[in-house]
């Protein structure tokens, strides 16, 4: 490369480097920068004061809220199911205690009178369950298909049936007397009950 070429190359390089460094930003660069700075500055200030970034709830906060709401709803459902099953179980227990009474009553009352006397606690339970659920209502009045049972009558029952069919008037008198006697016994039991309780306490 001779001196003239070197000078030319120098000039060319100066010009090329000058154009290499020429760069004009798009119009409004300062405005865009200042706008972004204003946003950034606000964020910095909010962070330094410990305030939330924006009044609008973020997805993270919403997620927590939805989570809690779902949890509460789930817990409510579980409690409702649990309470419902508990009531159902209670109703079943009532059925099991009330059925023998019905059977005995239909068969003519072989049990001792004291056992047929309704316990106040039991009565209250039956009343409560009657009011609360339908299951108890059906359990108190059993299905006629099942009661009396399909079991054949015993010898004594057959004799009683024959006696009633042959002498219905006498049977009615006996039944009335028996009922009256039971009532008297019930009255006696209810009168003596507080005394006996107090004696037990002693």
């Amino acid at each position, binding site marked *: 490369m001779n001196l003239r070429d070197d000078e030319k190359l120098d000039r060319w390089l100066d*010009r090329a*480097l000058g154009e290499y460094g020429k760069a004009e930003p798009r119009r409004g660069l300062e405005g865009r920068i200042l706008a972004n700075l204003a946003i950034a500055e606000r964020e910095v200030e909010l962070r330094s004061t410990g305030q939330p970034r924006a009044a609008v709830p973020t997805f993270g906060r919403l997620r927590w809220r939805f989570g809690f709401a779902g949890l509460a709803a789930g817990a409510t459902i579980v409690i409702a199911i649990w309470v419902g099953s508990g009531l159902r179980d209670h109703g079943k227990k009532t059925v099991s205690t009330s059925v023998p009474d019905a059977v005995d009553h239909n068969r003519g009352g072989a049990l001792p009178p004291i056992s047929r006397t309704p316990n106040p606690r039991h009565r209250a339970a039956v009343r409560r369950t009657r009011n609360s659920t339908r299951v108890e209502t059906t359990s108190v009045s059993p299905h006629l298909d099942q009661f009396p049972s399909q079991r054949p009558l015993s010898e004594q029952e057959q004799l009683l049936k024959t006696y009633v069919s042959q002498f219905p008037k006498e049977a009615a008198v006996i039944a009335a007397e028996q009922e009256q006697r039971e009532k008297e016994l019930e009255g006696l039991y209810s009168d003596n009950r507080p005394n006996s309780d107090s004696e037990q306490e002693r």
Partner: protein
Amino acid sequence: MAEAVISNSAIPLADANQDALETAVREHGRLVYRIAYSVLRNHHDAEDATQETFIRVLRYRRKLEGVRDPKTWLARIAWRVAVERGTKQPEISLSEMENQAAVMQLRSQLASAEESVVGNEMAELLGCLISALPEPLRDALRLSTVEELDPGEIAEVLGTSESSVRSRLFRARQILKEKLAGVGRQV
């Protein structure tokens, strides 16, 4: 030595108010953009780097009590931002056809006495040659293309002496001329 630009003297940028920052943006926004463009060679990236530079200024301004020379201080931040972003970008290389076109253009321009405009291919060829320079020479040369910066300010930005910058610029130009002359002879 570049840290020496920080002092207690009053300058607009040292104030922690919005007006000072706005003044800095209006006065030096273009400089910051050109520094970023000299490294990134892309308008969008250069604008992003300019934004990032001023956001960094916003973050650090509370810690800094004062800056003696805001222009150089900003130029230094802009340079760092641009270099950080530039390392993530792939190297630009010319295709065979673009290279041939650039060489032909260079030959015709050197042969003719008139000063014609440097074309796109030539600018890209020059960009590739500059990218291939050793890093200290390349950095000094890139900053020297930003017309707002003189060798003393380039030295401040690069954290070196002014004489070192002049020496690097001379060596960089020598290498470029040799390469360009070699390209011209090959055709």
